């Protein structure tokens, strides 16, 4: 992974692993319809409001930083989306899953019901359009689906099957159901499988990532 030449502003574009999978599937699911922007790699603690040269230089350290090339793993990029909120917003929405980490034994199930804090004037709320949940390695779960949202895209995602490869899987719902895999061969010589679960509020854009660990039973 190299750095991009930042002497001129260029754009380095690639398909993600998921994009290649959907392109290969050839069922029309590779259809770009919307975009989001993110500030991955930016550390806002570098924003120096005490810069002696004044406010034009507050962001100097950030604006001159070199950026890395794009990663093809869709779970490793677009981590921190920019969101559209009314001017004057002092507190941004954040997600609460009720768990900071998930550990499941083989075959065990868990239901997660995310909540959004600081959103629409409410301390704690469920988003109307639900939540998008992405498991980074779909193999570690025997079932992974979302319930509570009955839109066509939610239905399509919840019915999508990805077998045998370590690509991500995304579902939509107000509640997310997980069941750990029972397949022993995935473990190899280890006793644990680890991946991450990313949950994003579909209305607020708030995002949280937590680690998921599957432990071998026998």
């Amino acid at each position, binding site marked *: 992974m190299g750095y991009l030449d*930042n002497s001129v*502003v*260029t*754009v*380095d*574009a*690639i*398909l*993600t692993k*998921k*994009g290649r999978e*959907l392109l290969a599937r050839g069922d029309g*699911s*590779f*259809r*770009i*319809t*919307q*975009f*989001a*922007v*993110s*500030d*991955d*790699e*930016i*550390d*806002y*603690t570098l*924003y120096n*409001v005490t810069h002696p040269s004044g406010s034009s230089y*507050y*962001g100097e350290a*950030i604006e*001159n*930083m070199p950026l*890395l090339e*794009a*990663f093809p793993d*869709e779970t490793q*990029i*677009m981590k*921190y989306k*920019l*969101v*559209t909120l009314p*001017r004057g*917003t*002092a*507190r*941004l929405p*954040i997600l609460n899953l009720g768990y900071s980490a998930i550990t499941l034994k083989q075959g065990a199930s868990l239901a997660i019901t995310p909540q959004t*804090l*600081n959103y629409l004037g409410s301390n704690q709320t469920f988003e109307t359009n639900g939540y998008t949940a992405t498991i980074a390695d779909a193999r570690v779960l025997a079932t992974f689906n979302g319930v509570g949202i009955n839109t066509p*895209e939610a239905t399509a995602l919840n019915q999508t099957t990805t077998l045998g490869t370590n690509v991500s899987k*995304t579902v939509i719902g107000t509640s997310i159901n997980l069941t750990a895999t029972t397949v022993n061969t995935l473990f190899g010589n280890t006793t644990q499988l680890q991946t991450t679960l990313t949950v*994003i*509020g579909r*209305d607020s*854009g708030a995002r949280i990532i937590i680690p998921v660990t599957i432990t071998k039973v026998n």
Partner: protein
Amino acid sequence: MSFKRFEADDLVVSAEPVSAPVWSTGAPILTTFFTSSTQPSSTSGNYFYNVYQTGSTLSNAAIQFSLAYADAQGSGSSPFNSAVVGKSPTSTLYGQYRTLVLGDEEGSFVFGGVTSSYFYVIAVDRDRFKESLLPGTFNLLLTSGSTTLRLTDNSADVTTVSYNDAGRVYQVVSGSNGSAYSGTGYTVASGSYGLFLPDIGVILLNGRAVDSSVAGGGLAFPTSRTSTTPTPTNITKMYDAIRAGASFQLTYQETISSQFIFARVRNSEFNYSTNPSYITGSGDLRIPNMVNAPQTYITTVGMYNDNNELLAVAKLSRPLLKDFTKEALVRIKLDF
């Protein structure tokens, strides 16, 4: 909130022709030619030789093209079975190219008005010619003894492109850069020097033409047409002629389909971030100055389908400042 739908005119598909030298060296002209010492003893060696730009055992060796010899009577190679006359690797190749190029099992190869029952084949490696060869860029020197032939296709001379079962077809003539030196550029009595078939990456060299006398426009090339000829003999002769000529120029052409995507970020959009360094654990903005004048830095544009699945990403080379007074237009090109 964090996704914005593209409008109809934000997505544009464009197809652009791209051309470049065929050879893996990146140079327009290939001047060195190598074969593998193991191929003659293999089964494929009875049919064709692969030609490399460097020693075949070197790590950067890549097949540039294959050389073969085809003969309707099966001459120029030993028969598969001595009891079956005329059935040999060369007759197999003749039938293969007759099907591929003529599409008629009764057809004959006609080179510039003259029928020939044997020819040499230069089949450019698929990785090299991509989609098609670019007419007018074929320049090949063949040297035998003290005679050198400079061959090209006649694409610059013809006003109407001919087609057969292999797509576009041009005559191979004496000349350069798609034009004959004089007249048709054919031999005196043996027709053209071959057929240039850009759409399948194949060049057929008319055996009769190269065999004709120097005065007749040929090389007095010694094609062997007996049934006792060891199979690779003629291939080796043509390989030696190409190697002695030491100049083979060819360019490929392919159409790159690109999708241009215009991500338009308006002044009121994307001015807050979910970046953990932007907010505290409770969601408060970490930098108080930003409550009334929020600023963000765009580094990445993600492109999604309706299911919010991330299909493609575009990374900016440096962070782009965004606030309520700025708009951004990012043009992204995806090649397929």
